[in-house]
């Protein structure tokens, strides 16, 4: 079916989330919707799925105007949604999770007709080659399969228009390829697809048309056959951006971080880091690539003293630190940019100035005899805001009120406010816009050139390729390969991230 949105406007208190957005997608076509966080993609999608009502504007499906008062109306109109954060009940099995909300019942008690639902799911998964075990419990499935369950959920409701929100965010490169194949086969079968993403490569790969959103408006459209990454990036940001931060060759010095045979358990006591060996030298950036959940989080926590390893050795600047706590490690000159800045990087209800001294508040010059010297705190925080170009009304603004990019700059400013010999940056640019990514990368390269050893943990291949002097790939708690930055490509990294062993020891 043909989908058309005309002049959709949606206002939230203080924000114009969607400003007269008009887009259209023809039957059997894939429309790639590109935009940074905060560009209005999610709002538009929620309008399309009936979760929000637009303030003005019209939605046409096959030239008939439709209004969606609630999700049911959208589903009945044939719009199916695959959410970025999967909307599946973890303790249900596939049949229950797919049928939820569209259950067939077989008697007056409302007994769920499981057999009928199961039959239909098996038929659909065979027809569209969505390989899924209908009796498996959702929480036991890998994310790639969960996504297929999400797609099945939409097909089960006979959706002709499928909206995919950042569908590749949690997938391995291989799973992403499989997803593209599924999208192409669905489109060939007549399904209209809206593919929402902030990744430039994806729209170029899979879309028939591209529309770019910026600050709630349509910034432009492009033809994937002729458009380039640079053009799309500039359109997204609204100015010329550098996709790759300029950096000279690394000048590796002595070993700063050395990890030997490290084993670390996760919260469920499963072995998450399974014998990692890694050396990082002064003046180089080692990027640790891998799909989310392959032990990177626990590795970072072990290095920074947040989690005690089971066994193995960690040395930082020649000192054995595997049994140390976070403050001791931090005092060695280790900067930690945590993975989840909202949870571990900042205290949202505290001001920028207070957040700026979180790891040094107990030391001179910020405090003497347990009393804070607020004058010095304010001076230094103001300097940090200036140096790191943090866009904020004042240093007394609550950290939680800042945009994601500015929040991350506060974290980076704090971590770099004292001399560092080692930087551990976990997902340093997750959820940031292209402009902020550029800025953070620049700062990391600066630290490298000043002689620090840098570890960047990232799930984004673009980031890993852009900044890594060496790239270590983690899979199932091990480092399955270390590549020199120049030798790494999407293809060989993708293979390693999916668990293939390749290039073992190369340039290590």
């Amino acid at each position, binding site marked *: 079916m043909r989908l058309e949105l005309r002049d959709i406007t949606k206002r939230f208190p203080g924000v114009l989330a969607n400003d007269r957005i008009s887009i259209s997608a023809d039957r059997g076509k894939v429309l790639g919707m590109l935009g940074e966080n905060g560009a209005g993609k999610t709002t538009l999608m929620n309008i399309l799925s009936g*979760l929000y009502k637009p303030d003005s504007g019209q939605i046409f499906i096959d030239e008939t105007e439709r209004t969606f008062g609630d*999700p049911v109306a959208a589903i009945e109109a044939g719009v199916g949604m695959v959410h970025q954060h999967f909307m599946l009940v973890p303790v249900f099995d596939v049949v229950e999770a797919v049928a939820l909300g569209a259950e067939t019942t077989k008697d007056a008690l409302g007994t769920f007709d499981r057999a009928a639902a199961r039959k239909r799911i098996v038929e659909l998964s065979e027809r569209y080659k969505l390989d899924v075990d209908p009796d498996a419990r959702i929480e036991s499935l890998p994310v790639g399969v969960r996504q297929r369950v999400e797609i099945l959920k939409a097909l089960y409701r006979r959706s002709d228009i499928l909206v995919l929100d950042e569908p590749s965010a949690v997938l391995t490169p291989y799973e992403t390829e499989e997803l593209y194949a599924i999208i192409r086969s669905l489109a060939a079968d007549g399904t209209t697809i809206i593919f929402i993403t902030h990744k430039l490569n994806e729209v170029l790969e899979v879309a028939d048309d591209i529309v770019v959103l910026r600050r709630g408006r349509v910034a432009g459209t492009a033809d994937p056959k002729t458009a380039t990454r640079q053009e799309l990036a500039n359109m997204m940001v609204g100015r010329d951006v550098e996709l790759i931060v300029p950096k000279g060759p690394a000048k590796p010095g002595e070993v700063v971080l050395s990890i030997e045979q490290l084993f670390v358990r996760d919260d469920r006591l499963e072995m998450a880091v399974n014998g990692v060996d890694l050396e990082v030298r002064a003046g180089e950036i080692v990027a640790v690539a891998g799909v989310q959940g392959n032990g990177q989080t626990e590795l970072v926590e072990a290095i920074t003293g947040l989690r005690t390893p089971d066994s193995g050795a960690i040395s930082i600047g020649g000192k054995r630190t595997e049994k140390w706590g976070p403050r001791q490690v931090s005092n060695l000159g280790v900067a930690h940019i945590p993975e989840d800045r909202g949870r571990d990087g900042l205290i949202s209800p505290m001001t920028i100035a207070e957040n700026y001294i979180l790891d040094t508040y107990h030391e001179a010059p910020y405090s003497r005899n347990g009393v804070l010297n607020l004058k010095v705190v304010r001076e230094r925080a103001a300097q940090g805001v200036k140096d790191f170009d943090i866009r904020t009304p004042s240093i007394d603004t609550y950290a939680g009120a800042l945009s994601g990019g500015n929040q991350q700059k506060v974290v980076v400013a704090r971590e770099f406010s004292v001399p560092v010999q080692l930087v551990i940056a976990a997902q340093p640019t997750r959820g940031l816009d292209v402009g902020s990514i550029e800025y953070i990368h620049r700062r990391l390269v600066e630290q490298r050139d000043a002689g620090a050893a840098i570890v960047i943990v990232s799930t984004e291949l673009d980031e890993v390729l852009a900044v890594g002097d060496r790239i270590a790939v983690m899979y199932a708690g091990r480092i399955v390969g270390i590549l020199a930055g120049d030798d790494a490509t999407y293809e060989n990294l993708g293979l390693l991230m999916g668990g293939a062993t390749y290039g073992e020891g190369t340039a290590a």
Partner: protein
Amino acid sequence: MTAAEAALTMRPEGLAARKALRNSRLRGAAFAVFAVLAGYLASRSFDVAATFSFWIDKQGGETATLSTTVGAMWVVAAIATALVGVLQLRSAEFRWRRWLLVAIAPWIAALLGNLLAGKAAVLTNVLAGSLELAAPISMAAMAGILSERSGMLNIALEGKMLVGACVAAIVGSIVSLATGNAVLAVLAAVVSAMLVAALLGLLLAWLGIRHKVDQIIAGTVINIGAVGITNFIFLRILSRATEYNSPPPVQAVRIPVLADIPVLGPIFFVATPYVYIAYAMVAILTYMIYRTRWGLRLRAAGEKPAAAGTVGINVLQIRYRALILAGLISGLAGSYLSLATSSSFQLQMTAGKGFIGLAAMIFGAWHPVGAFLAALVFGFADATQSLLSILGVDVAPQILQSIPYVVTIVVVAGVVGRVRGPASAGQPYEQG
């Protein structure tokens, strides 16, 4: 050999595994110590008779008697404990929590024998009493399961039961005075108790859903309010005008045929209707929660409300309805207290039964059948306590009365271990 392969072959047992092994050995040693202790107690009590009897057909009729000595009972306990200890020492993976019951049951029996010190005890009363006392706890647990499965914490069960008990006593008395019809009075009492408790459930839902008040705090407010209001009513009105606190009692009902089964009949099939309703409720809720569309949606609302909301399910409506239904059930449970146990309302007569119901819910892993079995454990503790008090054993009554609560603490803190409740219980849901 690659680094990855080396890591595999050198895989150390690790801190947690070592800890598990150590704990396993400690547990094994503890079982051994208890086995020896039981043996020692056995050696001292072979001369103490243990006599347990059962009514064959009816209360006060003929009895069937089991006679042994307390020493023999301790021998059984020693053997059972030693067996569990050996199994534990053989493997660190041993599922000791389940086997704990095998060791504990003979210990409880033997301890009982010791406390009775030769006095004969009629077990029919204890077992039938366990079922009776378990009924309100089980109902409270069902109300808790309904609420938490929908995503709402419901610690206000206690207060709803208390108010239900009070309303049932007053309405039952008034209707009985006005009409003289005991059956009508009981029905009116039960229905009004359920409706008032359902209103309190609605209040909790309104506070927790509409105003997003922390559900624990909202529940506590209702509990405190219930104590205050019922205390006021009792002290100002009921204690002076006792005719308003004399509802007709609910009597035990004999189920024809089944009640004539020797020994078992008097235990299982001579009981107040509440007990039969409690059985039925377990069966109905189990079917409804796990086999119907309603149950699927209820569980989705408690596990991952956003998943339900995005497919158009009205999560808030599910939660409102679940809390109202839970209110109806807790009102019924409350009416049991004033109609079936003492035939009057007493100050704070719930005495924690709502909370014990929640403990049963957790012990039973939020499953109706499990919660019912857990309620039986608590009912048994309560019935044993009354048996010992009646027989006048040589233990301070305060200690005897604390048995059900001690059992609750031990069960929830020690035996239950890690069970997983509905993932989103207690979290408000924002519906677009």
